[in-house]
């Protein structure tokens, strides 16, 4: 129990924090420190989504004991969502993995770290080309950098990919196709300045609630903010929307083209902006071998573009999308107004889409065509689902085709630069992209004799046994393949460790030093605050230890140009620090060491990062971060805009300085409406959409171990419209089979549910490892981003006998 003194103290601290947060950031607020206690407060970004809220973490006697929204953080201004509220508890689930374990005779048995590291090194040495590393957007920047260097500069292999392939790679290809460089021009400040916020298949109220509250909070202050919810199902976001416009799956392609049609037909597009800053593009013809046309397409004139969007009349868009023609006109007129500031926001709805690149390009396109971009409040804002999908995967480049700082393995000059910066011999980095996620797992799940050339996989900080689409095909076949070896580093048992041959217990979040990069180009830093449990150790150390073991075994790839180990690290006196030995790992700050090695990579694409110590002082800084004449470091909020971005030429209002066409112009794309690859039919008559819920983050491995969240949302379900339930004769709570051409699972029916799907549609969340909806989903993917579509496939709902 709390003592009275402590209780009174904590209560007053809680009230002070809430009062300051309710009042906004105008009041001063001091963090509570209980007199005589060992309470210590330190900053960290939240462990969950890509918003990048900062929390203040209180530790006492080696444990995290309190969490507070960080008043000094621009992102969340002292507030947190229900998940952030409980983030400290993720460290303390009773079944934390605390010892390395090797599968022997079907059972996982404890082994030493010495043996575990040796097994991993031996497996890699046996067949380096058959080894793949699969990471995530939860890797810290340091971890991603080490993994990328280990694979590409060490093993000379590009078989490294990560789960952001499943969540935001279509946003990447959209930015690349439009601006020639990844990541958004704008930032969260656009939420505070826009007049209209358009949700493109985006349940922001539940998935990015703190950012959504920034919009809603403006209304409470008397500001007019119009929220338009373009959606396939009613969600919590719909409750706050001025307009809820339901569209059919893939109808978003038609809606965007319909807006473009109206801007052109009515002459309301921003002619001056377009002439000065934009070119037009379309895809070329498909090649004869069936491969898709080149991603960067072919030029087209404005007249050709106008002709291409001509068929997308409001009436035609209504036919294709289901959105009434009058509402399409409303959207077109809105974009045609210069006096409105419009912010489009999206996340998985546009990214998990077999035409994800296309819809990303189209939404950027209508913002460019109408000039609604680059001034505060006018933005096309892609939100991410993981805390460092941007900072680690997109920027450090832990995908199979990337190198750090926006470089690609297929570019000889980029490879040469990376080899130079990594100090490894010329020619070390392979010129061919490795396997992307779905291909990597397909090959791992195919017998070696049948072409399954990935034989050993190391998975870190993610749970592909739950998140891959079509799990029977892409993950669970491994169970019967004796010549495949799966290594999993994680903090709790998961659907992935279930099939692992070797399990490595990891440190998490404030049990290690780290840096993340959020959705608005903000790089954040924190220090280790508590010890990991048992023998758990950080993922970065695990890779470093394996690399060193390979070096000691004489593996040439682990040597740099100077013959030294590729992760050679010295102290301030120049003496080598044996960071491969756990007891010496924290003798130096490895995170700082890696970050300073990474920084020079970031300048090529003007994603400049400040020195590590600048991030220690800040609640994150948005790149490019450029040093001023007085020595200070300045972040950039609006990229490509002359009033804020230091890389825009003097006197220019905008400059898209990495443009595909090398003329500082962005591309407005035409991409046609296309139907999804699988649609309901007589045998599988329902659309299935999958997604997240407020209480759980991704596969629930952390949030399901927090009692409050687990109790609030204990199990998955299938949401169904009441008319469909009546027609099928199923009652609320009745268990039904959800079947597709790929698999089936049993789920209780929730009539209406939280999302209230339309007739003919069902929704299932994917957080529940006991009910794996990805046994059912489709593994078709966008041809450019290789991102699968989890939002639409055809299923049947069958009553159980």
């Amino acid at each position: 129990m709390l003592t009275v003194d402590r209780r009174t103290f904590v209560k007053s601290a809680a009230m002070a924090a809430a009062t300051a947060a309710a009042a906004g950031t105008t009041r001063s607020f001091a963090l509570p420190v209980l007199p005589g206690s060992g309470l210590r407060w330190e900053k960290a970004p939240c462990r969950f989504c890509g918003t990048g809220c900062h929390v203040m973490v209180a530790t006492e006697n080696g444990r995290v004991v309190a969490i507070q929204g960080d008043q000094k953080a621009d992102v969340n201004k002292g507030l947190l969502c229900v998940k952030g509220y409980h983030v400290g508890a993720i460290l303390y689930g009773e079944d934390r993995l605390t010892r390395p374990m090797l599968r022997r005779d079907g059972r996982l048995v404890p082994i030493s770290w010495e043996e575990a590291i040796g097994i991993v090194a031996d497996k890699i040495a046996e067949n380096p080309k058959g080894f793949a590393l699969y990471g995530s957007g939860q890797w810290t920047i340091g971890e991603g950098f080490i993994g990328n260097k280990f694979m590409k500069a060490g093993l000379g292999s590009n078989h490294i990919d990560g789960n952001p392939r499943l969540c935001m790679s279509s946003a990447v290809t959209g930015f690349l196709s439009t601006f020639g460089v990844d990541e958004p021009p704008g930032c969260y400040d656009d939420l505070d300045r826009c007049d209209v916020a358009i949700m493109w298949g985006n349940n922001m109220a539940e998935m990015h609630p703190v950012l959504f509250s920034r919009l809603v909070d403006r209304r409470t202050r008397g500001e007019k903010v119009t929220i338009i919810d373009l959606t396939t199902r009613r969600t919590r976001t719909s409750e706050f929307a001025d307009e809820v416009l339901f569209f059919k799956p893939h109808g978003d392609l038609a809606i965007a083209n319909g807006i473009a049609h109206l801007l052109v037909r009515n002459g309301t597009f921003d002619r001056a902006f377009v002439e000065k800053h934009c070119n037009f593009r379309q895809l070329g013809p498909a090649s004869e071998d069936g491969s898709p046309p080149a991603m960067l397409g072919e030029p087209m004139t404005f007249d050709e573009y106008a002709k291409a969007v001509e068929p997308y009349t409001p009436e035609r868009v209504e036919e294709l999308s289901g959105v009434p023609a009058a509402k399409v006109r409303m959207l077109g007129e809105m974009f045609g107004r210069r006096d409105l500031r419009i912010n489009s926001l999206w996340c998985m709805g546009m990214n998990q889409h077999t035409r994800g690149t296309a819809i990303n390009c189209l939404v950027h396109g209508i913002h460019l065509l109408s000039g609604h971009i680059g001034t505060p409040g006018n933005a096309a804002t892609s939100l991410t689902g993981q805390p460092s999908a941007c900072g680690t995967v997109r920027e450090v480049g832990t995908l199979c085709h990337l190198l750090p700082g926006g470089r690609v393995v297929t570019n000889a000059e980029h490879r040469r630069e990376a080899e130079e910066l990594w100090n490894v011999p010329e020619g070390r980095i392979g010129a061919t992209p490795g396997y992307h996620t779905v291909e990597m797992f397909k090959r791992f799940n195919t017998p070696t004799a049948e072409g399954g050339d990935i034989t050993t996989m190391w998975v870190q900080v993610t749970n592909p046994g739950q998140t891959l689409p079509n799990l029977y095909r892409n993950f669970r076949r491994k169970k019967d393949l004796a010549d495949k070896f799966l290594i999993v580093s994680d903090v709790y048992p998961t659907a992935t460790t279930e099939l692992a041959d070797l399990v490595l217990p990891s440190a998490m979040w404030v049990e290690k030093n780290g840096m993340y990069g959020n959705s608005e180009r903000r790089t954040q830093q924190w220090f280790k605050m508590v010890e990991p449990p048992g023998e758990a150790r950080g993922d970065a150390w695990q890779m470093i230890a394996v690399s060193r073991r390979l070096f000691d075994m004489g593996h040439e790839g682990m040597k740099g140009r100077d013959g030294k180990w590729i992760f050679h690290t010295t102290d301030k006196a120049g003496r080598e620090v044996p960071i491969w030995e756990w007891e010496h790992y924290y003798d130096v700050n490895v995170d700082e060491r890696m970050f300073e090695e990474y920084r020079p990579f970031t300048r090529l694409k003007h994603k400049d990062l400040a020195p590590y110590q600048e991030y220690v002082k800040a609640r994150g800084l948005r790149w490019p971060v450029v040093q001023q004449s007085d020595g200070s470091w300045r972040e950039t909020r609006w990229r490509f805009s002359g009033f804020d971005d230091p890389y825009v030429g003097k006197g220019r209002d905008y400059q898209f300085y990495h443009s595909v066409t090398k003329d500082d112009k962005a591309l407005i794309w035409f991409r046609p409406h296309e139907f999804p690859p699988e649609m309901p039919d007589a045998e599988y008559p329902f659309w299935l959409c999958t997604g997240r819920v407020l209480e759980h983050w991704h596969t629930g491995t952390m949030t399901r171990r927090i009692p409050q969240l687990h109790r609030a949302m204990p199990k998955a379900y299938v949401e169904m419209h009441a008319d469909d339930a009546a027609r099928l004769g199923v009652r609320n709570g009745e268990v039904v089979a959800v079947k597709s051409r790929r698999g089936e699972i049993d789920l209780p029916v929730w009539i209406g549910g939280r999302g209230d799907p339309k007739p003919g549609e069902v929704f299932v969340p994917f957080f529940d490892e006991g009910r794996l909806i990805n046994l059912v989903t489709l593994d078709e993917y966008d041809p450019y981003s290789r991102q699968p579509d989890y939002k639409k496939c055809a299923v049947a709902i069958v009553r159980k006998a």
Partner: protein
Amino acid sequence: MSISGLVLTLDGDPPLAESAIRVLRHDARITLGERTGERLAIVVETGSRFEDEEVYAALKSTPGVRFVDVAFVEFGSGEEGAGDADG
């Protein structure tokens, strides 16, 4: 024992917001703080984290309350973490 500091965003309709405040006043576990516009600071003090979550869920569904945000949570007073999620 669990103590948290929350920020409620009340409905823009004044009678509805007032009715929410009346409901909150009658709950001994809730201490009302200052109101700034439609945002109200409160402290929730309950006997357990489970009860804390029940109050949180009830607040979310209280007519007149549009959003519940969290500003502070203390959970270091004895209750340990959960067991296996599927347990």
